[in-house]
Structures are given as C-alpha cells and as structure tokens.
C-alpha cells in the first residue's frame, strides 16, 4: 500500500515515478516521443497539480483526491496477479446491449488483445495500440501531431510525460464506418491505488464518418485515478461523433481531457454523460482551424452522495463561418456538486460565427450545489452568440398533475427527472446507446 506522503512532495513523488518509468523503457530514450515526454515532465514539475487559486480549477479542489498516492500503472506489479481476474464476461458487463462495435479494451491503461474484438478485415479504418506502434520504433506520433502550444495544465503534462499506451484510430479518407469504435478502459487493482493514463489519438480522414465511444469502468474496490487524454484530428469535411460515458465507482477520480482540431467544414459532436465518481473533471477543447466547421457539445451529469462533477469546455473560433452549440444539463442530489464552465473564444477574423451555449440544472436537495459560468470572449463584430444558465427544482405543479392521474410521488419524481434528462439523451443517434443510458438513469434514480 502506498504511504501518504508529505503534501509538498506530491509533485516530487510523481517525478520520481517518472524516473522509474523511464528506467523501464529500453531503447526508447533517444526517440522523439521520449523527448516530448521529457519536456512534459519538466512542465509538470513546473506546474504541479492545479490549486483552487488556478482560475480553471476554482470550483474543484483536487487535494482530497491526491491525499492517496496513486501508483502509475506502468510501475504496478502485473506479474503477481494483483490485477483482478478479468475475462470476456467482465467485458460483457460493460458493453452496450444490442450494439455491435469494434471493441478495443485497455486494462489499467494497457491494450489487451484477447478481450478486444477488432475484426481482422477492417476496411477504411485501422485500430491499433499506441504501445505496439512505439515498440515498432515508430515516431509517427511526432510526424502527425501538430506542435503543441505550451502546456498549461498539470494533469495534461503528467499524462504526456507517461505516454505509453492508448488507442490509435485512423479512418481513411472517404471511409464511412458503420459500427462504432468502442474504447473500453477497465481499471483497478486489488492491492494498490493506480494512476491510469491512457493517451489516445483519433484521425478522421477527409470526408470520413466515424463514431467513437469511450467508457471508463472500475474493476476493483480500490479507488483509482484516471488521467486520460484523447487527441482528435478531423480533416476537411469529416464527421466524428464522440460519446464519453463515465459510470465508475463512487470512490474514484477521473480527469479526462479531449482536444479536438477541426479542419474546414468538419463536424464534431460530443456527448459527455457522467453518472458517478468521487471527482470527475472533463475538459473538452476544440479549435476551428478552417472555415465552415461545426461543433455540437452535449453533456449530462447526474450526481448524488458527495460526488463532484466538473465540466469545462473551450471552443476556439479561430476561423470564420463556424458554428458551435453547447447544451449541458445537470441533475444534483444529496450533497453533490456540479460545475459547468463553458468558454467560447471568437477571434478577430472569425466573422459570421454562430455560438450558442446553454446549461440547465435541476437541484433535488437542499445541499446540492452547482456553479455555472459561461465565458464568452468575442473579438469579431459580425457574430451571433448567446448563452444561458438556469438552476431550478422539480416543478410542483407537474408533480401534482402526475399524482392526480394515479402516479405515485416517487414515480412522478423519476418521470420528471427522466424528462429533464431526455433533452440530452434524445439527441443521441445510436438507439441501443440511448436505451442503455435511459436504463442507467432509471437505476441511478431509484437509488436516489
């Protein structure tokens, strides 16, 4: 078991973890990838983990989560069977019923080919593990990746420092992929608290269409911390729909960053659906690097107990004639806390921008709380932008109406909460996924 260190040494603790990780890498030290890792760990040492004095983390205090020393999964002892026994039955538990997918499974951040289900004759799409690519000595990442602007976030820096595995999904030009790609992350150890940091890359070629599902699940009682980063590159006229489902144990933490780079006329649609977690922080950053693009960001967070769910988004209208649309809804009960911070930046030359944002919250208890903050920075003058946020309770008149028709008080409440969530769920274009999420909501509500 990890010992709880002196608080001021948290950064040092992870830095020494990095050194151990580096030692384990044979022959990779001279590669460009490792150069990037080194730069990243330097950034991390400089930045440390964000404190509440950091504007971006003002409402989310991560200190309590970090009281536990999480062991980077790369350093965990895999040989003595400390990872829980997982087989295809475990995986079945987490699949979306009735939905055929191209499945890639990661156990504690490591690709598991046995549990995955990637058809050998896939046309138009390649699904690979980052670790395999790196083992082959490829530096492909640095070729394809646009040089990063300075990393300002400690979590992102830490993830990049430990870059070792994740999914690489490459969709060819003009390919339309019918079956969604499901990235399934199973994490947990029976004896340690793990830090799992997948780093995924998704490339959508010109005119291509693909759907990506990312789900995160705990497979042991011990709390773990996921610090994941997905980088998505959408070429001209391509469309990606990204579904992120967080339904993890109530004790775990998850920091999840999605960075999207959109070329001309591309469409990015995202669903961030969060049901559980001691602390969940989602960052979605998307930038329009060509004109005529669209970004549609939807989110639903259901929090109860002492859960803390923080959704931060940043849409950078760096090109003209692009459209962005954000709709996030929160349902909070008990002592739960939600945060929504939606930033929209419209740069000086981004004329004819359309940017709409809405955040609606339902508070079901006296102690539930939400902090909602829209931030619009508009430097162009021919634009249409709007934002709105509401916080409210269940409508008494609606409850009475349902009861007056014979529906019991508890069921009436569930129906109305479900109705509130349906604005988001109904936007999902995959029917089995909609069905699955509606059932999850009902399950969650019955415990509420």
């Amino acid at each position: 078991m990890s010992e709880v260190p002196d608080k001021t040494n948290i950064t040092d603790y992870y830095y020494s973890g990095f050194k151990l990780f580096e030692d384990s890498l044979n022959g990779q030290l001279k590669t460009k990838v490792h150069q990037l890792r080194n730069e990243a760990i330097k950034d991390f040492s400089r930045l440390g983990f964000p404190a509440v004095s950091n504007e971006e983390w003002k409402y989310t205090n991560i200190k309590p989560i970090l009281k536990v020393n999480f062991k980077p999964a790369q350093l965990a002892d895999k040989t003595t069977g400390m990872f829980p026994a997982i087989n295809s039955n475990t995986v079945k538990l987490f699949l979306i019923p009735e939905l055929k997918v191209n499945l890639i499974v990661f156990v504690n951040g490591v690709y598991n080919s046995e549990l995955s289900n990637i058809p050998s004759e896939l046309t138009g799409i390649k699904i690979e593990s980052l670790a395999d690519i790196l083992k082959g000595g490829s530096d492909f990442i640095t070729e394809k990746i646009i040089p990063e602007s300075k990393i300002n976030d400690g979590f992102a820096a830490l993830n990049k420092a430990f870059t070792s595995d994740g999914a690489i999904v490459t969709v060819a030009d003009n390919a339309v992929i019918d079956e969604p790609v499901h990235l399934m992350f199973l994490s947990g150890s029976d004896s340690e608290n793990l830090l799992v940091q997948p780093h995924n890359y998704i490339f959508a070629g010109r005119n291509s269409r693909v759907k990506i599902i990312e789900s995160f699940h705990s497979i042991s009682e011990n709390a773990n911390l996921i610090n994941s980063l997905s980088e998505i590159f959408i070429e001209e006229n391509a469309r990606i729909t990204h579904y992120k489902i967080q339904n993890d144990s109530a004790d775990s933490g998850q920091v999840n960053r999605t960075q999207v780079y959109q070329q001309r006329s591309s469409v990015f649609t995202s669903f961030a659906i969060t049901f559980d977690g001691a602390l969940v922080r989602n960052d979605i950053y998307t930038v329009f690097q060509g004109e005529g693009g669209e970004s549609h960001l939807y989110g639903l967070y259901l929090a109860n107990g002492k859960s803390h769910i923080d959704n931060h988004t940043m849409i950078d209208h760096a090109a003209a004639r692009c459209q962005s649309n954000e709709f996030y809804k929160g349902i909070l009960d008990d002592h739960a806390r939600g945060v929504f911070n939606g930033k929209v930046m419209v740069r000086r030359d981004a004329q004819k921008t359309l940017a709409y944002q809405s955040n609606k919250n339902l508070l079901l208890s006296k102690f539930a709380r939400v902090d909602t903050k829209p931030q619009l920075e508009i430097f162009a003058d021919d634009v249409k932008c709007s934002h709105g946020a509401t916080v409210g309770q269940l409508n008494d008149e609606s409850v009475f109406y349902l009861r007056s028709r014979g529906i019991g008080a508890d069921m009436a409440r569930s129906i109305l909460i479900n109705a509130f969530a349906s604005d988001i769920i109904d936007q999902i274009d995959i029917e089995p996924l909609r069905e699955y999420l509606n059932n999850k909501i009902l399950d969650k509500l019955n415990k509420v």
Partner: protein
Amino acid sequence: MPENSKLNLDRGYKTMLLSVKDLSVSIDNKEILRGINFQVNPGEIHAIMGPNGSGKSTFASVLAGRTGYIINSGEVIFGGKNLLELSPEDRAREGLFLAFQYPVEIPGISNATFLKTALNEIRKYKGEEELDAMEFLALMKEKMKLVGMDSALISRPVNHGFSGGEKKRNEVFQLTVLEPRLAILDETDSGLDIDALKIVANGVNLYKGDSREKSVVLVTHYQRLLDYIVPDFVHVLYNGRIVKSGGKELAFELEEKGYDWIKEENKEPAAV
C-alpha cells in the same frame, strides 16, 4: 338554508358516491370554503356555478388533493373512504379525476407514455392486469376517435405547445382513457370557442353515456356548457357556501338574471 332542501337530504350513506359535510377550508388564514354540504350519487351530473371568487376552483382542488389548503373542519367521504386522508394518487386510483382549469405542460414525456403509466398504476391498485404496449395502443386509438383527438398529438410531450382548447380536449381524452367513477371538470369551458366547447362536451357525454357507474361534477361560471352537458342538479356556490340548489332550470335562471340576484339574497349582515 338552501331552497329545495329535499335535494340535499341524506340519500343513504351507502349508495352515495361523494358526500361532503360542513367542509371549511382556508388559504393563508383566509376562509374560502365556509361549510360546504354536497352529495353526488352514482350516475348523476351536477353543476356547481357561482361568481368569481366564490370558491369553486378551491373546492375542486381540495377534492383532488392539492396542497396549500388548510382543512379547518368537515369531512369528505368518497366511495365509502375518507377522501381527505388519501394522497392525490390514491384518490385517482379510487376513481376520482380532476380536469384542470390550467393543465401544466410537461416536456420530456409523451402523452402516450404518461397515460399508459397512469392507467397501469390505477389498474395495479385495483388488482387488474396491466396493459402492455399493444393493448394500450388499441385502447388509445378507440378513445382518440371518441374525443376527435389528433393522433399526432399523442406522441407529443404532455400538453407541450398545445393551444388552450387542445389542452382542455386532452383533459377530456385522459378522462375517457382512465374511466374514473367521478369526473370533476374545473371550468373546462373557459377560453373555448363554441366548436371546441362542443367537442369537449361530446367527449364527456360519450364517456358518461347512460352509465350509472359514472358521475360528473361540472364547475363552471357560465351556463353555456350546460346546454351541451345537461345536468341533473345545479348548485350555486357563493362566498364559500352552497346557497341554492335546483334542477337544470336554475342554470337558465342564472343566465337570465346574472349573479347579482344571488348576491342580494345572500347579503351578509353588516358586522357590528
């Protein structure tokens, strides 16, 4: 004492569907109902008329179980049970239905899903088998014809985007599907033009038919509705009391004379 008091004679506790005795209700320390006595037997149609502020909607709301009212005294027996002790859902399950004056919109749940859930909860309570999706759809189609309900509205969220008339028609539609023993219509005619009124009235009449099992209480300000749904008894509620009862001719008398006549007859002595 109201005239025609023989209409208010205790007609036998066991046969009565609804019996209200000396019901007194306040809101915010103001007494709205001041001792209501009212009885409905199975199969009867009653109209409760009165000027604005007389307590008509309060009476309907209290019977349905809306909160925010203080019951000062009195009792209400419905189907042999103490109504005031039942939750709103149990009142509905026992067969009481209130057609709201201002039905609320509930986006996010369709009229069909809502009604199916309600009907099955009522059936469960009565020990009857729940209807599955197919059976319910068949039932709905049958009732939609009765009320002239546009089938497109069924899959829309409850009352969402409905006009005033469509909302009132939806109330009557629900009535025909849930088949309560006692339907209370709270100013269902208000805000309707003559065509919408006829459709709504037709729906109520089709629902009631000649059945001795179903009763209706129409709470209304205007006599107009009673041309189409003919009451057996008409009562006038003024200042929180039923001050007059009669047959359907009473409604014509009110139409002719207005409510001033009632107000004159029931002027309260000046406080000293």
